[in-house]
Each structure stands twice: as C-alpha cells, then as structure tokens.
C-alpha cells in the first residue's frame, strides 16, 4: 500500500473513533492527521479504552484426544463483570485456567492487557474450586506466604483483605478447621491479595451459605465498580442477576451466546 491511501485509511479510522466513541469533542485534526483528543490525552488511556482487555483468539485446548475448548474466540472489555455459564464439561473451567495461564492453549492465542497470560500474572487473581490454601496453616499465615510471592511486604495488606472478605484477621485457626464458607472467603482473599486488574473465579459460591454468598457478591460488585474485570464461573447464575454485566454461555467447548441478562424461565428455575 502506498503512503497516500494508508494516510486516508488512518484518517478515516481516527474520524470514526472520534465521532463515535471516546472523544468528547468529536474533532478530527486534518493538518497532522491525528485527533486533537489524542494529542491532549495520554496515549495509554486512549489505547486501553480502545482495545479489549482480554482477547481470546481461536483457542483450542486438547487433553489427549478430548477437546475441552473448540475454537473459542471472544473479546472482553475492562471493568466489566462476566458470568460464564454452561453445563458440566462445557469448557468453563478450562477457559478460566487458560486465561490464568495454567492451561496453555493447544492452538490459538490469549492476550490479557496486551500480554500473554504468563506475563500478565501480576494483573491476574485466580480462585479455583479447591481452596489453593494450606490446610495446616492459619488464613493469615497462608496469606502472608502468598503475599511474599508477589513481593508484598508487611502485614497491612494481608489484614486489609481478610477484613474485606469479612473474616477476622486475628483468627488463628488452621484453614483445615474452617467452614466451607470461610474457606471460600479466605480463598477469595488470596486471589485479591495483590490487587489484580483481572479476577478469575471458578465456582466461588459452591457449598457456601447464603450470607457468605451475599457478602462475596457485594465485594465483587464493589471491585467491578472500582474498575476491575471479573469473570465468575458458576452454576448459580441467579445470584449474579443484576450484578453481572454480561452472561457468557458455553456449550461443548464453545461460546454459544452472550447476553445482558439471564432468560426469565431460567431465572425462575433458580438454577442452570
């Protein structure tokens, strides 16, 4: 492509960008082929707003002959709350593990804030179905250890997240003696310990009492409002009605639908 047509394409792109999306003035600066808004705004802000936070591009994940993900392609924006739904074996957990960098795609690519999942590990908090905690240590001891892995010194952040999830920092009981609800909340505390931009939660509400679920949902909502991107894999979709921005439906290793709410009959049934 020669220089002139390329310039024309760039102008057209910028013009569209300014008039339709983020530019409050809708002004295109024709002299130097760039947008006034871009000139006056730090470049990173514009780039982050324009690009999706997470890009999943034709991801296939095979375990032997079994394909858990069969060509998943999707973009996810920053600062939104996504609930991933689907039957058992639909590929929800595998997708979450792939986003966390725990299951490398057999084919395809994943970009998290423009980086590979492995490189973006500081920006990602992951909570799995098992607690990912040492049963023999107290919650505080566990968090202190994991804080060390992220280079977080001192106890202030540890105590802050324990309080955030509604537990007592002075609790000295071993995690093995916690109730399921406490364990899940401590597991969430571990996931948010390093203040990640992206939170991946695999069935955080399973076997948890209603009160604990409510507390967790309120916390997640406040985190989303603070600009975090949140993915929750759950079988209890109704708990997130009115909280999640988007419901991502998976079936047989593919994303089959994305909806803003869950269907009425589905909600009435109270379960997936």
């Amino acid at each position: 492509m020669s220089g002139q047509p390329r310039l024309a394409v760039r102008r057209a792109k910028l013009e569209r960008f300014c008039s339709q999306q983020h530019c409050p003035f809708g002004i295109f600066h024709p002299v130097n082929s760039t947008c006034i808004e871009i000139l006056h705004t730090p470049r990173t802000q514009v780039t982050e707003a324009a690009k999706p936070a997470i890009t999943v591009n034709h991801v296939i994940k095979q375990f032997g002959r079994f394909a858990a993900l069969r060509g998943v392609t999707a973009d996810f924006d920053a600062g939104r709350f996504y609930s991933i739904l689907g039957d058992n074996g639909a590929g929800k957990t595998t997708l979450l593990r792939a986003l966390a960098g725990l299951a490398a795609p057999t084919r395809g690519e994943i970009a998290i804030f423009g980086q590979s999942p492995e490189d973006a590990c500081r920006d990602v908090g992951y909570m799995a179905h098992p607690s990912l905690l040492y049963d023999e240590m107290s919650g505080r001891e566990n968090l202190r250890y994991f804080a060390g892995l992220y280079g977080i010194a001192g106890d202030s952040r540890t105590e802050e997240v324990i309080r955030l999830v509604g537990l007592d920092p002075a609790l000295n009981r071993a995690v093995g003696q916690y109730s399921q609800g406490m364990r899940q909340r401590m597991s969430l505390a571990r996931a948010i310990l390093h203040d990640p931009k992206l939170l991946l939660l695999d069935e955080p509400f399973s076997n948890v009492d209603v009160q604990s679920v409510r507390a967790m949902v309120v916390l997640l909502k406040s985190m989303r409002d603070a600009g975090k991107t949140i993915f929750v894999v759950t079988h209890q979709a109704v708990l997130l009605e009115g909280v999640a921005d988007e419901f991502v439906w998976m079936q047989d290793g593919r994303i089959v639908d994305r909806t803003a709410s869950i269907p009425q009959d589905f909600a009435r049934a109270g379960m997936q």
Partner: protein
Amino acid sequence: MTSIWTVTLATLKKDIRLEWRSKDALNSMLFFSLLVVVIFVFSFDPLAEESRHIVGGLVWVGFLFAAVVALNQTWARELRNQVLDAYRVSPAPANALFLAKVLGNFIFVGVLEALMTPLFVIFYNLRVLGSAWQLIPIAILGTWALVVNGTFFAAMSLRTRNREIMLPLLLFPISIPAVIAMVAGTTAILTGEDSAHFYIVLLLTYDVVFTTASLALFETILHAE
C-alpha cells in the same frame, strides 16, 4: 519478578512450619531407618572389622530409602487443595520453589542422619580408622545428591498416577554414581585403607552437574500439564 532468595526463604520457612506441625516426613523417615538398622542387626551379627566394610552401604541405602518417603511428602502437600496452582499463577520464580524444596529436604534428611548415625555406630560397634572429618563432606555432598535428584524426579512424577512407585524407578538408577561414591568413600574412611578424596571430588562434580541440570529444567516441569 520477585527476588529468588526472598521467595526461597519464605517457601523454606513455610515447608519447615508445615513439617513441624504434621511431622509426616520426619516420623516416617525415622521409623523406616530404625527398621533398617534393627533388621540388619538381627539378620547377621558382624564383627567390628566386617562392619566397617559393609556399614557404609547399609547406612546410605537406608538413608536413600528413607529419603524417598520425605521426597514424596514434599510435593504431596502442594497437591492437596491444588496449592501448586497458586504458586504457578504468581510471578515467583520457579527455581525458588525448587531450591526451597531441596533445602527443606536437605534439612529433613540431615536431621534423620544426625539422629540415626549414633544408632549405626552403637549397633555395629563402629570406630573410624581413617580421617573422620572426611565423613562430613561425604555426608553433606551425598545428602545433597540424594535430595536434589529426588526433589526433581518427585516433581516430575507429580502428575503420574503411581507417583510413589515412579519416584524410586526414576531416582535410583540415576543416583547410582552418587551412591557408589558415598558408599566407597564412607568405607574408605571407616577402614582407613584408602583416601576418600577422589569420592569427595566425584560427589562434588555430580552435585554441580545435577543441580545445574535440575535448575535449568525445573520451570518446564512445574508448568507441564
């Protein structure tokens, strides 16, 4: 990237704390080694002179078998509740985990050796005829050889179905040069017939080679599915 030494130290402290609370590895190792001592004492009744020739082999084979118990425990506690995944998603360097595990196992096996050696001396009526101080480098380098390979192969067999069986199958053949050096070196010192210098150098070389290789490969092992 978080500092390798900070994470190594934190992980080592955590492992010692977990072992102190559960005593899984130490209890099983001690019991196993005690059985080895007692069974061999009752199986044959060697004179002091004969003991000097065979006890080097008995001691190290006993420690090798006992170490396998500890090595299996090392990774088993990381698999409970899938805690290893929490490490894998963190920015902590993989080698910090490996070094911490090796150091932890070195301490546990070292404690076992310190407790069991007097029993070997008493039961086999041992007196050292060679340079006794050379037993120290042999013990340190030999124990390091066992635990560095053992920790690596235990991590490798972590996701296999029969990992308790897989570990000795992988570990013992590769440990043969080190075991030969440990046994021959210990026998040379106990009998005073030969210098153990060659075996110390051999063990040192073995340790450097296998520690380097393990450190180079561990990240691949850790992130393997």
